[in-house]
């Protein structure tokens, strides 16, 4: 409790409050803007870590993470363009509400629901982070190695539709991580001295997230403007409140655990929440036509899951979303190794962050409810300037890593890789997780074997490790069974009829 109060003291200094405010404003903006998401925004902002204090930077990044969720729901509702798969449901149901003249209520239930879920999620973090950290600290290197292998399998297999492409992406990432002389010998440096220190992870992140995305969008620019639904100040009637509060709580209950498990993600809980609300609703006939429960529940689930991802990030050093991956990267650039020791070594930082999450949430509610029409104006920024701006800041970010034109060449190459990945449907997350956790994996393996004097059996010498390998085994079996079944009954092509699609995804 004292630690939490100290955390609030850290978070409430004028400087950190300012960074939290900048974070939520930037986050909402990038959430609203097309073609730029929180992960890309964080990648572009990594240079600030060169001189801003670690607590301020992390507080700002967390604000962007949460803000991106809020902003994303605004565009989903007003434009029916889900920026991320976790807001597909919001786009369907919220846009239907908006079209029937209830845009204000849809925005309000999304914003307040996100606030409720984010706040409950943060309180759960206050309770869980110290307890989980206590357990995790007792894990030895073998168990930790096993957990990392699990994380690799989880991000690769659970997300995305094609496991093959997930693994391709993961091993490409591990390959990039090999470059350099970390083991004392030059690996994959092509005899180039500038590759001896390895490829700067900032360059990888900016290249894949920002340049790759900008090139991909530029190659497929939508020309016809989307039809935006005009909106006033969001508000809800007494009846809307009555219909919303239970879905908010249930959505939170779905979202948090999924976020907290490696690779649970935010998609599945939003679909689960939607299906649940449809079953429990007194107005099931409104679903698919703009039911407020269908916005309230999934939006809460979405945000609770974002809070949940902080648990593995802060206790294990395992990122489960692209945005969390970049936050981990930011911590690393301060020389802080996120992992089991983080809470012990950096209590002020962790508690400051946990306290600031509540503040960020409150700020977001304040800036989103009255200012929704203002945010919608951002959608009128002309595309050429928007994407040129992304390329500009991406180049700047990569250049400031070392002030070396060579890094810019790498940036272009990685940008083209990012473009190809989007063209061929390769998920981005496994690659970036591979790049970041690859070296850590090698390190944990080395540590484990050093302790055991090279005896390999130490790897399954701890009960936790055995349990984790059993989970991985189960996942592989499930994948094999799924593949066999999938071959027998070829999966029906995804139909745009919303109800069928959600059913299908829920049943998966």
């Amino acid at each position, binding site marked *: 409790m004292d630690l939490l109060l100290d955390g609030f003291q850290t978070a409430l200094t004028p400087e950190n409050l300012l960074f939290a405010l900048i974070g939520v404003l930037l986050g909402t903006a990038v959430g609203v803007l*097309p073609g730029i998401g929180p992960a890309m925004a964080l990648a572009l902002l990594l240079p600030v870590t060169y001189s801003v204090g670690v607590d301020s930077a992390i507080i700002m990044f967390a604000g962007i993470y949460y803000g991106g969720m809020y902003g994303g729901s605004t565009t989903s509702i007003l*434009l029916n363009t889900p920026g991320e798969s976790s807001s597909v449901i919001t786009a369907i149901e919220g846009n239907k509400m908006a079209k029937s003249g209830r845009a204000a209520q849809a925005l309000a239930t999304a914003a307040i629901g996100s606030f409720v879920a984010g706040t409950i999620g943060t309180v759960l973090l206050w309770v869980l982070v110290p307890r989980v950290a206590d357990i995790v600290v007792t894990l030895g290197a073998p168990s930790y190695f096993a957990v990392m292998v699990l994380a690799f399998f989880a991000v690769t297999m659970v997300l995305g539709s094609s496991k093959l492409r997930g693994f391709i992406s993961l091993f490409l990432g591990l390959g990039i991580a090999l470059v350099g002389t970390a083991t004392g010998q030059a690996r994959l440096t092509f005899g180039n001295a500038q590759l001896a220190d390895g490829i700067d992870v900032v360059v990888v992140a900016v290249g894949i997230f920002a340049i790759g995305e900008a090139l991909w969008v530029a190659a497929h620019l*939508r*020309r*016809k*403007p*989307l*039809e*935006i639904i005009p909106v006033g100040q969001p508000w809800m009637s007494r009846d809307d409140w009555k219909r919303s509060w239970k879905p908010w709580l249930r959505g939170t209950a779905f979202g948090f655990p999924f976020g907290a498990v490696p690779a649970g993600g935010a998609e599945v809980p939003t679909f689960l929440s939607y299906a649940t609300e449809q079953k429990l609703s007194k107005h099931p006939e409104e679903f698919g036509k703009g039911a407020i429960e269908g916005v309230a529940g999934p939006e809460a689930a979405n945000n609770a899951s974002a809070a949940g991802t902080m648990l593995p990030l802060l206790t294990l050093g395992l990122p489960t979303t692209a945005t969390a991956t970049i936050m981990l990267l930011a911590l690393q650039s301060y020389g802080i190794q996120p992992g089991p020791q983080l809470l012990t070594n950096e209590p002020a930082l962790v508690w400051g962050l946990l306290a600031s999450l509540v503040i960020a949430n409150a700020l977001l509610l304040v800036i989103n409810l009255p200012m929704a029409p203002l945010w*919608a104006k951002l*959608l*009128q*920024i*002309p*595309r*050429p300037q*928007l994407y040129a701006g992304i390329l500009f800041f991406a180049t700047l970010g990569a250049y400031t890593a070392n002030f070396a034109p060579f890094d810019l060449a790498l940036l272009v190459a990685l940008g083209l890789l990012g473009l190809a990945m989007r063209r061929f449907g390769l998920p981005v997350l496994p690659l970036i997780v591979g790049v970041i956790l690859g070296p850590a994996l090698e390190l944990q393996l080395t540590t484990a074997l050093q302790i055991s004097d090279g005896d390999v059996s130490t790897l399954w010498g701890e009960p936790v490790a055995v349990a984790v390998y059993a989970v991985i085994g189960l996942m592989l079996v499930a994948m094999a069974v799924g593949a066999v079944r999938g071959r027998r009954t070829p999966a029906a092509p995804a139909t745009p009829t919303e109800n069928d699609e959600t059913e299908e995804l829920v049943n998966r």
Partner: protein
Amino acid sequence: MSIVVAYSADRYGEAALDHAVGLARKDGTRLVIVNATQGGSLVDRRFAHDADIEAVRDRLVAEGLTVVVRHEVVPDVADAVVAAAEEEQATLIVVGIRHRTPVGKLLLGSVAQRIILEAHSPVLAVKPAAE
């Protein structure tokens, strides 16, 4: 013989359209409504929704007018209006104009101004009632 109106989905466009409809009704001329966008941004408020422009056309057709709608994405809005006037052999182009400060003119330029300068037919500039 036709009247071309440069329509935008705001009060300036409405003013131009109202005026053009009045003229077309009086003389019985064909009305060509041009609502175009460059498609440069995700949202262009002056580009009417498909359903809205349909409604406008249906309303005018119901009144007995001959109406052609050009609702399209073009490289340049002013060029599109001028080209439409040429193709439809317009006797008149109606545009809505707004007040701009000198600085605003410098920065943004004006579609209406370019239509006035580049069109070969007479151009009528209309302002909304209370500017």
